[in-house]
């Protein structure tokens, strides 16, 4: 079947088998390998993308669900438009050593961006609750939580034009 959707701001039309997972479509058909497949059982969250602004696990999403929708992947994140800078959440992960091997990072960042959106401040408890669906086997989460809190503050400062 043919599906049309907006992928990181670009209109995209592809032919897919209905039994295609969005994670497979991105990685194998569209050659966008920023979205990782960790567990492939909707536990680990390495494959999180935003579907119409909401965080979803792309390993547990059928491609037909994209038809008419807007999809944002880790490749679509950026700082100020056309600035070629990292997104504030990505900057915060770099500054706070929020990754070690980096495998879980795309999903962590996408979940964190969704969590921080429209929230003036995030408590540590809210961050930990919000990251329940993302597993990291390296860091012990401390620096990820720090990164998300710093990234959320930076996103809100940017939104206010500070």
């Amino acid at each position, binding site marked *: *079947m043919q599906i049309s959707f907006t992928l990181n701001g670009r209109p995209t039309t592809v032919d897919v*088998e*209905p*039994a295609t*997972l969005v994670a497979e479509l991105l990685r194998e058909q569209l050659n966008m390998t920023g979205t990782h497949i960790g567990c*492939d*059982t*909707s*536990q680990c*969250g390495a494959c*999180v993308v935003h*579907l119409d602004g*909401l*965080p*979803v*696990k792309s390993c*547990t*999403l*059928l491609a*037909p*669900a994209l*038809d008419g929708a807007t999809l944002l992947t880790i490749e679509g994140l950026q700082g100020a438009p056309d600035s070629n800078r990292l997104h504030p959440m990505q900057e915060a992960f770099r500054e706070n050593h929020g990754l070690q091997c980096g495998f879980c990072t795309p999903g962590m960042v996408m*979940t964190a961006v*969704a*969590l921080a959106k429209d929230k003036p401040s995030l408590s540590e408890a809210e961050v930990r609750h*919000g990251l*329940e*669906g*993302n597993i990291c086997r390296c860091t012990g989460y401390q620096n990820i939580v720090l990164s998300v809190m710093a990234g959320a503050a930076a996103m809100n400062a940017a939104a206010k034009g500070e």
Partner: protein
Amino acid sequence: MKPFAYHQPDQIPDAAKLLTSIEDSKLVAGGMTLIPTLKQRLASPAALIDLSKLAGLKGISDGGTTITIGAMTPHAEVAASKLVQAKIPALAALASMIGDPAVRSRGTIGGSVANNDPAADYPAGVLGLGATIVTSTREVAADKFFLGLFETALQPGEIITAIRFPLPLKAGYAKFKAPASRYALVGVLVAKFADGVRVAVTGAGPGVFRVPPMEQALSQNFDPSAIAAIKIDTDGLTSDIHAEADYRAHLVTVMAKRAVDAALG
């Protein structure tokens, strides 16, 4: 996953017709249970009928003495709803504890209720609050809907369209979650109405069930101390890799007390 045909009807009667006319077809709502099931090849339907394009199945409406939640409303929307938070805060809290944020973006109340997973949260909310399941053909009281392990009163071709909740005087939900899956090892919803208290338990047995001795005790005295001495019989409770039946039985009383505490605010 084995290949399947994919249908996206936009009217409920069309969806019902597809469901009855295509042998071995399945409905897909948010897919949070079905897609993993397909991936493990525990099911390989010939066709999926996607409910996401059906008109009128999404959203939360205020009926004055009730709240009606469309079957395709995702958990995140119920958790964030100002109306649900104001009128049945226990239900908003329950929705906020399901799975993780990504699961709550996609998973729907109708899908959860139709699937009737023995450890899912919504069956406890629906049974504990004495809700009504509205389908494409009729209305079914929660007490007559949940029949056992993954089994409901739904007939072939019948589609849940909404769940209607009466407003309790007070209600609370507490769950002890399995840490990896966030499913309920035991979850208890306690709801106080003018005519008595309802207590519904998920996770402990092969399906959601009520606890009449706790309901009677709490109807007399709506306080955690009223049920502290009530022990649950382990007969029929689940023993598995996560917990033995006697541990689950113990947790029912603990979670019920916490749910009453939550209801009392």
